[in-house]
């Protein structure tokens, strides 16, 4: 068997195992490194950015973790396109950029004649079978990355696995679904979550937060306005219009939540499925309580929650409040950790630790991402990074903005594989002890206002 299949195939085949998370790291490490090298050799042929990096750092082979470090990207890679290309509708240059930062994308051959904005561009590419995902950032700037057909297939398989592993839920199209995201859009979450919603949901009872597609153009408009204010070209009425539009969106959002909350109350005696991120889920459940959800939902209901709060302010005990309102057992929660730009997700076990699949190599670095840390008592604490070996449409070795602890020892849940403790924080939110006063500034400092609240 091993003679004919690659290390990569052997690892990725484990997604069909009964419990892929049940493994000992020392048993797969050699296979992981071999697979990492296979992925590297394959993608450097296709990704100019990766090839450039390997040349610049003199990295020809991966035979250990240390060889991998210079090949890790920061998430800035997928946000590195100049915003001006979008504004000037320079789809050719934007396409070249995508092709350089991804593998197997064929953008140049797609006819983009007459395309007016980035949403149209993404739709045109999608029609031609080229999937580009976006993922939003708090700065009003979205990352842009490519997913191959195989990547999308594995993405769905990964979510099915996580549901089954954490909650026992299976995709039988039987449950009312509360999907806390718009029905359509280029966001990666919408594709992944949307397919889950249809996979698990009863076709007549799938409720989306919005029937309007989420447009990248709207997300980017925040960035454009910030830029215009910085340059002094935005007029007071433009700022006012933007703020009013944001306020209207908030009202619409509340109305949608009320519509969903009423449905939650209606379906409270059936096993349902909730899917979204913490912020909107908390708001939905609060609204449902206000509208008559008195004694929780059906005990076989399941809920997927996770994601950073991205600057949204919630009460410190929001998770407890949510749990009290739903009255669901801990085993009904699918808690996830992952990076938007990676495909492989990490579901939490009964001990609230996030488990790492064998086709995902975790590394832990110092704050400045300069060195790989050595384990102390089997644990590593620092900046988290992952090489997602499953990805083939882009490079899967990324350093996160998160600080956390990886335990290489068996988890108290009984699983011998590596896990991440429930102590993950963004470096941005850490008290940095930053009391450094400097006369140098950025133009952003001159852009005042509550514009940030407009980010969905």
């Amino acid at each position, binding site marked *: 068997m091993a003679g004919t299949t690659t290390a990569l195939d052997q690892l990725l085949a484990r997604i069909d195992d009964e419990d892929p998370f049940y493994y000992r790291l020392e048993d797969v490490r050699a296979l992981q490194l071999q697979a990492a090298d296979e992925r590297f050799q394959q993608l450097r042929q296709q990704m100019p950015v990766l090839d450039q990096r390997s040349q*610049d750092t003199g990295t020809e082979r991966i035979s250990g973790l240390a060889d991998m470090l210079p090949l890790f990207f920061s998430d800035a890679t997928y946000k590195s396109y100049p915003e001006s*290309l979008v504004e000037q509708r320079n789809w050719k240059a934007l396409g070249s950029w995508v092709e350089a930062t991804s593998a197997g994308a064929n953008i140049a051959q797609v006819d983009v004649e007459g395309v007016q904005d980035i949403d149209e561009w993404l739709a045109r590419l999608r029609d031609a079978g080229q999937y580009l995902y976006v993922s939003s950032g708090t700065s009003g700037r979205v990352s842009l990355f490519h997913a191959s057909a195989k990547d999308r297939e594995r993405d769905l398989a990964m979510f099915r696995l996580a549901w089954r592993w954490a909650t026992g839920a299976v995709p039988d199209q039987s449950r009312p679904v509360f999907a806390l995201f718009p029905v359509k859009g280029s966001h990666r979450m919408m594709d992944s979550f949307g397919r889950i919603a249809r996979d698990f949901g009863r076709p007549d009872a799938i409720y989306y937060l919005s029937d309007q597609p989420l447009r990248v153009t709207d997300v980017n408009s925040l960035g454009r306005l910030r830029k215009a204010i910085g340059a002094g070209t935005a007029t007071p009425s433009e700022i006012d219009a933007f703020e009013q539009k944001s306020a209207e969106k908030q009202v619409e959002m509340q109305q949608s939540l009320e519509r969903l909350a009423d449905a939650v109350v209606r379906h409270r005696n059936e096993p349902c499925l909730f899917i979204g991120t913490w912020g909107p889920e908390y708001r939905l459940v609060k609204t449902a309580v206000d509208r008559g959800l008195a004694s929780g939902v059906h005990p076989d209901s399941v809920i997927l929650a996770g994601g950073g709060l991205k600057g949204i302010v919630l009460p410190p005990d929001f998770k407890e409040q949510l749990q009290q309102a739903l009255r669901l057992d801990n085993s009904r929660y699918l808690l996830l950790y992952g990076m938007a730009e990676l495909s492989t997700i990490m579901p939490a076990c009964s001990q609230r630790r996030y488990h790492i699949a064998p086709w995902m190599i975790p590394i832990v670095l110092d704050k400045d991402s300069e060195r790989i840390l050595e384990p102390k008592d089997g644990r590593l604490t620092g900046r988290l990074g992952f090489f997602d070996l499953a990805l083939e449409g882009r490079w899967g070795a990324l350093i996160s903005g998160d600080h956390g602890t990886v335990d290489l020892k068996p988890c108290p849940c009984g699983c011998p594989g590596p896990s991440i403790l429930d102590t993950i924080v963004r470096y941005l939110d850490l008290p940095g002890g930053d009391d*450094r006063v400097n006369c*140098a500034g950025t133009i952003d400092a001159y852009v005042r206002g509550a514009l940030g609240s407009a980010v969905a």
Partner: protein
Amino acid sequence: MSSLTGTVVGKVIKVPHIVHGKAVFGDAVEHRSRVGDLFLTPKLDLDALVRPRSEPGPAFEVPLREILDLLGETGRRLNLDTNPHLAEALDLISASSRHSRRVVENTYRVIGQTFEPGALGYQVERELGPGVIDGWVPVYKPNAPSCQVRAFPPRLVHIMAGNGPPAASISIIRGALTKGINLLKLPSNDLFTATAILRTMADIAPDHPTVRSFSAAYWRGGDEAVERLIYRPQYFDKLVAWGGEATIRHALKYVGPGFELVQFDPKVSMSMIGREAFCDAETLERVAGLAAEDVNMMNQEGCASSRHQFVEGDVKEVDRYCAALARQLAVDRFWGDGKIWKTPADIRDTVEGLRFTGTHAVFGHYDGRGLVVRSNEPVDFHPIAKTVNVIPVASLRDAVRYASVATQTVGIYPRERKAEVRDALANAGVQRVVTLGSAIGLATTGQGLPHDGFLPLQRLMRWVSDEESE
């Protein structure tokens, strides 16, 4: 290490406070600096740090002449080779600094120059007018009875900047020239320079009223437990704040009737290079060197450090300039290192992506020798760590639209062309136009010339009138 100013015990540094001119040592409070080093300070005695309004400050009636004498002597004593306070501050700062010891040492070698009494006397006269700092001066308004005006000493609390010793000397000099009461809030990125200067002054004349007019202490910037108690008009007239957005936003909470903010805003700077740079290869290299000088002050960590450069020429010419600039950035300079820390990963990864748009070109290296990115429009990221964004323009006038209220210094080559754009730049919000290569302007900044768009001494004083009627 000897224990004059700060003391290193293992990795723990002790930072003294200065209370009315006297150094106070202690290790009651533990703090952690930005780089994670532990340091200890005495307990903050807020009652001792403020002076009641019922009594005038010690230096209120001291003639300017005597203050200039003290400052002049201080300048002479701020000699790195003979001054133990300064030598120790240098050791402590360079131990935790990202800049090379050579560059940090250079900054210490020049601070004495900023105390030159002739220049300071000129500054007072130019900013305030003759005599008003020493007493009541008659003013003659047409068709009005004669009145008198005095520039009265203020009560100031300074939120200091820590990017280089000159920031400390400028705050102390201005505070001394006002004759006012000064409380300096030490920045975590320079806990030593201000106290070293104040202790040098105390060594010269421990009981001098100007010496007794100064206190210096550390507390975490924005610490409400401290700031809500002392940022009050009962104790201070003005908060003189340098620095970042967070500092200013904290400070704004306390501004109200009787308590005013004088702010030196966080700024960005740029360069404009005319087509004259391309007249021959030697000139191009020299111009790139001047531009690198303006980029590489304190390794591009200053407000006057150039980050975007607009070059008059076609892409081919501009790329030649970029290549020359990348070479020049790698050269050791008085104010900057030829090689610094690595380019931050987010900038490196962004630039790696830009290579493939077909509209950008990249010159230089990610290893700290300097990086140049040529683009049609300014890049979306903020260039730091010796990263320069070069944008070709058809004419210098076309570059004016990239200047804004956030722009402090614009360095221009050749000098003859400053006049062509300076009104348009000022209109856009720019505060300072210099000849390329002179952005540091140590000898000019603030000393009788505007700083951040105003005359600082004039803003710091309290202007009081004694009016006659018919």
